[in-house]
């Protein structure tokens, strides 16, 4: 039902397109690599699609500075290839074929190494964006550290394109790890969860501690001398990327995640929990299962959002209204006064609770 895609070739064209759409209150859907999955509310009206794929230049990479400035439509794999030639990497980004830099930031998708290296939002230094009404705005700075002005870059990460269209970002990079190793352990979930917690507390900065039903995987990064199997584990390979026809992401305190994961295993759910981070991705098949896992998350002081699911499961993809919704609405209004960007998809439910 969406209208033919427009692929602006430069900033001026994009500004004009958005200004016009805004003037006529025409909804606009923003698209990148199209790998973001089916998330958010189902759009109830046709929209003009604007693609960022023409913004595809790696503008600057200063290896000695560990900083890169890239356009939002650059595929993450292409960026990582270029950085890899200089033994560097955008370490907070997940490795998703076809995903764009802007797309990953818009949905705040962090890599499995978040435990050690932090969330993707911590890697964004500067953003250049076009607001819903066609204003070109820069925020942040190109240096690795900076507190000049309000942190608009943090707002746009995870905003699902509702505040503006990202055109260019400056990213903080890391040296490419010279040696890494995966270790795993099999056994009852609560048992391997305990091994994982033990490792998390006693190893120095493990990159990743992943718990699945009856299985634990740990990635270590460091000099070869440090890559030894933690107690109760054996050398292994990277676990397969977790997925499924419908997935939900839970966010809970890392302190309660091992217990919650054991409960999920007992209920028969397939999942992958990032111990120490507090994120757990769960495969679901029905609305009842969504309701159940969300209830478990809320009871544990957390939340659950749909990452990817067919229409039938997306009546309430975001869960209860977050704190500060009135501020969020005013922010939305200040960046996109006509409310055209990804209208009707971000936050809310079909019942119109607010």
């Amino acid at each position: 039902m969406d209208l033919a895609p427009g692929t602006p070739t430069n900033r001026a064209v994009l500004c004009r397109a958005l200004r016009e759409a805004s003037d006529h209150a025409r909804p606009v859907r923003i698209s990148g690599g199209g790998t973001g999955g089916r998330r958010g509310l189902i759009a109830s009206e046709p929209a003009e699609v604007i693609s960022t794929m023409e913004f595809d230049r790696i503008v600057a990479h200063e290896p000695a500075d560990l900083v890169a400035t890239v356009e939002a439509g650059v595929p993450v794999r292409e960026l990582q290839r270029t950085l890899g030639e200089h033994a560097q990497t955008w370490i907070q980004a997940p490795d998703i074929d076809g995903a764009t830099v802007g797309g990953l930031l818009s949905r705040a998708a962090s890599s499995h190494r978040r435990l050690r290296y932090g969330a993707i939002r911590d890697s964004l230094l500067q953003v250049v964006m076009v607001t819903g009404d066609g204003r070109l705005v820069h925020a942040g700075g190109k240096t690795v550290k900076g507190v000049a002005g309000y942190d608009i870059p943090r707002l746009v990460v995870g905003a699902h394109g509702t505040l503006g269209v990202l055109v260019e970002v400056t990213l903080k990079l890391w040296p490419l790890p010279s040696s890494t190793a995966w270790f795993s352990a099999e056994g009852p979930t609560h048992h391997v969860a305990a091994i994982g917690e033990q490792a998390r507390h006693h190893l120095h900065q493990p990159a990743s501690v992943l718990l699945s039903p009856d299985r634990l995987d740990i990635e270590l990064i460091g000099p070869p001398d440090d890559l030894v199997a933690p107690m109760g584990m054996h050398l292994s390979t990277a676990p397969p990327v977790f997925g499924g026809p419908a997935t939900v992401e839970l966010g809970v305190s890392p302190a309660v995640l091992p217990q919650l994961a054991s409960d999920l295993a007992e209920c028969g759910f397939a999942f992958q929990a990032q111990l120490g981070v507090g994120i757990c991705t769960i495969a679901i098949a029905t609305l009842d299962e969504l309701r159940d896992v969300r209830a478990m998350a809320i009871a544990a002081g957390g939340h659950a959002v749909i990452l990817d699911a067919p229409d039938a499961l997306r009546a309430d993809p975001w869960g209860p209204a977050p704190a500060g919704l009135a501020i969020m609405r005013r922010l939305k209004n200040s960046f996109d006064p006509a409310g055209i960007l990804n209208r009707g998809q971000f936050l809310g439910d079909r019942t119109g609770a607010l």
Partner: protein
Amino acid sequence: MSTVITASAIDRFRHVVGPERVLTAALERLVYARDGSMNQGNCGLAVLCDTTAEIAECMKVAAEFDLPIVPRGSGTSLAGSAIPLDGSVVISVARMRRVLSIDPETPCAWVEPGVLNLDLTAAVTHLGLHYAPDPSSQAACSIGGNVATNAGGPHCLASGVTAQHILGMELVLPDGQILQLGGPAPDPAGYDLRGFVVGGEGTLGIVTKVCVKLTRNPPVVRTLLIDFTSLTAAGAAVRDIIAKGVIPAAMEMMDRTMTRAVEAFVHAGLPVDAAAVLLVEVDGTEAQVSEHTRVVEDICRESGASHIRVAADEAERALFWKARKNAFGACARIAPNYYLHDCVVPRTRLVEVLAAIEHIAARHDLVIMNVFHAGDGNLHPLISFDRRDEEQVTRVLQAGREIIEVCMRVGGTLSGEHGIGMEKRDFMPLQFNAHDLDAQARSREAFDPTGRMNPRKVLPSGSKCGELSFPHDHLPEGTWI
């Protein structure tokens, strides 16, 4: 917005917190009119709060009487962020100093905003944990103030600035509403308001509780003090260490003038004849530390380091850090006042910027000392002067502006960790254009539509163009955004 605090408003504040915690005497107000910067403000009234409920009530009183509010922690801001202007009401959180809960499993802690940075680490040391951001003022500055400025510190090179260590907060809005933003559960749906409030410099509300991420102590730490015969050589070493893919826990530099001032004060045995001293700390496992130490030592020698001293024990390490962290205080030996800048430049441009600063000092016949976070390019050129000498003050301000302009020209940022406050406010147009400033002004308004929170800070006047509308009636049914 009213700048007159009436007797009935004062009575209302007294009713909320009790008469002894509402400061009205001229001398008391004078204390709250200053912070760590060189600016002088004008405090109309200071209210010392003990609880979130008191702050919320005070915010409501201020709203009712249309009074401007300036939140205050320890008042150590180096940019004038904590200074009240035009007789604002200062709300101090300095008495709110409890560590509310510690969760060693996550690990994280909920603390009140008046808790001092170093006290927080002291409270979790027995668990083998620490709070990573460590501004030089950490013995005096509060966590609330750290959140307000998005504070940094030497160890932010590898571990990141305050924003990366704040999991959540309780925020009282200017209308008295209390919000909890974030917490130990990551990534709640919606915009990252938590992240936005960090660095908000008290213009978005008052933070009344903070959930801080705690970090496990590294198993091995090695601290090296390296002296160079030229600033250029030291700058080159910093650049090459980063380029080699080694990010030390901290990498700090001091020039000769600063080293001498500090040594006379701290007596750490610093090499007072060196043109530049580099303090490098590497941490991690024994294997990591050995590998990184070797790289640092090799590069420094290649760059012409004349001597490398490794801290033999924790006491010597502490002495090195005492020297570094007391640098600003030591400057009083040179001149009674200093004007401090906080620009960040790309690490690859460090050497040329340091040379340019040297020229600026010579041209204006001023003493400019450098002590800074070399590893992330965060300069702290410190211009010594005597404020009683008006002609000198003029030269100081001109030199400060020229330093900022040099940093901007090489792609730098106005502030790395001190914030904008009022001292750097009017330089904002050097980094941001009218559209950028307008977007910031509108974002600020989303939290404080009345403009009463820490007015005239961060953004220069006239930043906002046009008025906002709040239509929202076009939202599809069932959606909130």
